[in-house]
C-alpha cells in the first residue's frame, strides 16, 4: 500500500527541484506536483512499502498505509528519527500501542 502525503503539512522541501522523498525513493515514485508544489506518489501500485520517504520527511507529512498482510485498516507504523536513534510506534488493528527505540549509525 502506498504512502499518503498530508498536503497541509508538506512544504515541498523549500528548495523545490527535488524533495527529499523523491531523492530517497528507491523506485523513483515520489515527485512534486508542479501545480500544488506538494509531493505525491506517481505510481501507487509500484510502492514496496520501504517507508524511506516516511522516515526522511522533515515535516512528518508522509503516512504509510500498512499492507493488509501486515496489519489491517487501523494499523499504523510511525517512525520518529533522532540524531542517532529511531523510535517506532506500532499500533495494531485493536489500537494496541507499542514503541521501540533503536540506536542508528547516523550520528556522524
Amino acid at each position, binding site marked *: 500500500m502506498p504512502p499518503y502525503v498530508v498536503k497541509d503539512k508538506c512544504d515541498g522541501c523549500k*528548495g523545490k527541484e527535488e524533495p527529499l522523498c523523491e531523492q530517497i525513493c528507491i523506485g523513483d515514485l515520489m515527485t512534486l506536483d508542479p501545480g500544488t508544489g506538494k509531493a505525491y506518489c506517481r505510481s501507487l501500485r509500484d510502492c514496496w512499502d520501504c517507508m524511506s520517504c516516511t522516515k526522511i520527511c522533515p515535516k512528518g507529512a508522509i503516512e504509510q498505509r500498512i499492507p493488509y498482510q501486515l496489519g489491517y485498516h487501523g494499523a499504523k507504523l510511525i517512525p520518529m528519527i533522532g540524531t542517532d536513534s529511531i523510535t517506532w510506534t506500532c499500533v495494531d488493528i485493536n489500537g494496541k500501542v507499542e514503541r521501540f527505540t533503536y540506536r542508528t549509525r547516523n550520528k556522524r
Partner: protein
Amino acid sequence: MDDSLKIGIYLCTCGGEVEQAVDAGLLAKEASGWPGVTVIHKDASLCSTDGIRKIRGDVEKLGLDRVVIAACSPFFKVEEFSGLGINKYLVGRVNLREQCSRVHRNNPEHATKKAKTMLRGSLEMARHSQPLQPLQLPALKSALVLGGGVAGINASIDIAETGHEVFLIEKSPFLGGRVAGLHRYFPRMCPPSCGLELMFSKLKDNPAIHILTSSEIDSISGPPGNFEIMVRTCPRHIDAERCVLCGKCLEVCPQNAVIYPEGPSFPNAPAINRKLCIEGCDKCAGACPVHAIALDEEEKVSNSKAGALILATGWEPFDPTPLAELGYGRLENVVTGLEFEKIAGKHGAFLRGLKRIAFIQCVGSRDERHLSYCSGVCCMVSIKQAILLKEMEQDTEVYIFYNDIRTPGEYEDLYRKARQAGVIFVKGIPSELKPGDANKINFSVFDTVAGERLELSADLVVLATGMRPSSGIAELGGKIGIALNKNSFVESHLQCYPQDTRRAAVFSAGCCKAPMDVSRSIESAGAAAVKALQFLTGGIEVVPDHSAVNTLKCDVCKRCIEECPFKAYALDEKGFPKADILKCRRCGICMGGCPLAAVSLGELSIVQLSEMIDVFDRSYLDEDEPVILGFLCRNDAYRAADDAGLRGIQYPPNFLGIMVPCAGAVNGAIVAKAISTGIDGILIAGCPDSQCHYIQGSALAKTRLDDISNKLREMYLEPERVRFVAVSRDEPEKFARAVTEYVSELKLLGRNPLRL
C-alpha cells in the same frame, strides 16, 4: 570517541555563593570517576589571578586537552577564562551559579543533583568540541558608495581620508542630492551651498575618491570584502574641465535637452540628455565658445572592486497629487515644501509681495493610505520657512496648520522663535482648497484648540509633504540582496546594528534607511563609514565558527539555502550547499532546519548536543520527577534565565538549560532524540517574533516544534511534551513562571513512556 583526552574540571564556589545550595565537595568526588577526568580542583575564586594561574599551570604541566569550568554564567569573566593557555573553544562553561545554586536555594539536595547532571553534560560537550583558529581573509582596501547626496558624500570623504579608495556612484549628473535644491537648512539657518562647497572641495582634493556621475549599478557579484561591481555610466557630453557655465548651449537647444545645475553642484557643468536630441542636431556644439561639447561620447560600462558597500540612495518627496482636495497641480499657488525652497532661493521679491501664506502639515503623512509614518522633518521645514518669511517681511501673515508639532531637542528653540516672530499655529488641517479671486486660495479649517471654524484665503499654500525612499531602491535592493522594511526603506536592526543591512559588508546611511534631516543624515554617514572601515582595515579576521555542512550526510534538499535569513548559502563546486564565512551570522537556523541534521556550527555541533543528551541521567531527581531540557536563545532567554539567577527568582530544579545561538538552531532530530530517550519535556525559549536578532528564528522554531508536536500526537504521546515560549531579555519572572508551570503540567502528564 577518543577516551584518551585529558580533561580538567574546575569548580568555583564564587566565594561560597555556589555552596549555599550546591555541595561542591560531593560534586568533585562524583566527578573524579568520570571518563577522562585528569584533575579536579575546587576554588573559592577561579577568576582571581591565583585561580587563573592554577588552571594555566595545570594546562601546561598535565597537558590538558579540555578544560571545564563550573562557575558563573558564561557571560561573566569571558576575558579571564579565554586566556588559559588552551584554545578558548576547548573550554567548557557550566552555569552553576545563575542557573543552579541561586535559583534552587531552598532545595540543596536537588540543586546538587542538577549540578552534577549539568557538569556531566558539559564534560561531554567539551569532549566533542573542536579547536578553532581565527583566519585572516583579504579585504580590498576600497569602498563603493551608492548615492551622491550629503550622506554619500560625507561617507566617501570619511573613508577616503583614512587612505582607502572610494568609488562614489551617483545616478543624476550632479552630486549634492536633495540638499543642493534647498535655500537654507536648519537649525543654523545657513545656506547649504556653504557646506556643500566645502564638501566638494574635499572631494576634488582627494585623489582616493573616484566620482562616477550619471551612473548606475548593473550587477554586483563576489563575497563581502571582495565585491565586483559593474557600473554603467551615461556620457555627460560636456567636458566639465573646459565648461565656463556661459549657458549658451541652454539657449540654443531646441529640445530642452541641456540639464543645467540648479544649486551648487559638482561637477559644475551641465549635462546633455541625448535621448531628447533631434537626430543630427549639433547647435550646442557650434555655440559652445570653449569647445567643451562632444556629442559622440558613448555609454561606458566599467568594473570596480570594493571591499564594502554603503547605500546612501536617499529619498524623494511624496507626490501630493492623489490628495485631490488639496488641489496640488490644479491650483496655481499650491506648492510643496521642496518647491518653496526654490521660490525662496530665486524669487524672494515675489514672496515679499504676498500678504498671507499658509503651510499645511502632515500632507499624506501618518495616513495609512499614503505614508503610514511620520517623516520627522516636515514640521521643522515649515517652521524654518515660516521664520524666513517673517525675516523677509515682518507684515506677512504666516499660518501653520498642523496635527502635532514635532520638534525634538534643540529644534524646540526654533519653534519658540517662530511663535515669537508672530507665526500663527492652528491645530487643524484645512479640508478643501478652492480657487478664489486674483489667484487666491480659499479654505475653511476647524481650529480644534479654539473650537471654532476659520474661513481664510491665502496667496500661497505650502504643502509639507513627507519623505519616501528613492523609487530605485527596490530594484537595487534585489541586485544586492538586501531586505526592505514595510515602508520600503532599507531594513536594519535599528537598535543593535543600525548601519547594518541583512548582507555582510553592506551598510546603509541617510534617508534610504529612514526619513531624517541633514544633520542626522551626516551623522549616520559617519557611522556607516566607521562600520565599513572596520571591514576594510587590516584584512578581515574571522573565526571559522560558521555553519558547515557535513557532505557525507547532505542530500542537497536546499532547505538551508531557503531558510537562511542572510542568504549566506550557495552551492559549492561539488554541488553541496556551503555558507559563506563572511555572510554567515552564526545563528544556526540552518542547523535547526536541516532534515538530516547535517549542518553544525563550529561552536555548537549536532554531535555535541546529541552526546550531551545521551549522558544526562533521566531520573536525576527522582523516578517521578519530570526532566525538562531547555534550549535557551543566547540573546534573550538565556540572559533572562541569568537574571532570574541574579535576582534569586526560584524555579524547580527539573529544568536543564542549554544555550543555543537562536531558538531556530534547535534541530528536530535533537528534540526527537531527547523525547525518544526518555526526556519528559522540551522547552525552547526564544525572543518574541519582532525581537528576534535573526529575523525569523523564533517563527521557524515554532513551526518546527508544531511538526514534532503533531508527530507525538500520532504516536499516541502527549503533544505537550514540546513547547515554545517567547521570553524577552528583561522577563526573568516570565521565564521562571514558564518553567514552573511546565514542570507542574508535566507532573500531571506523568513520566515519558519512553523513559527506561
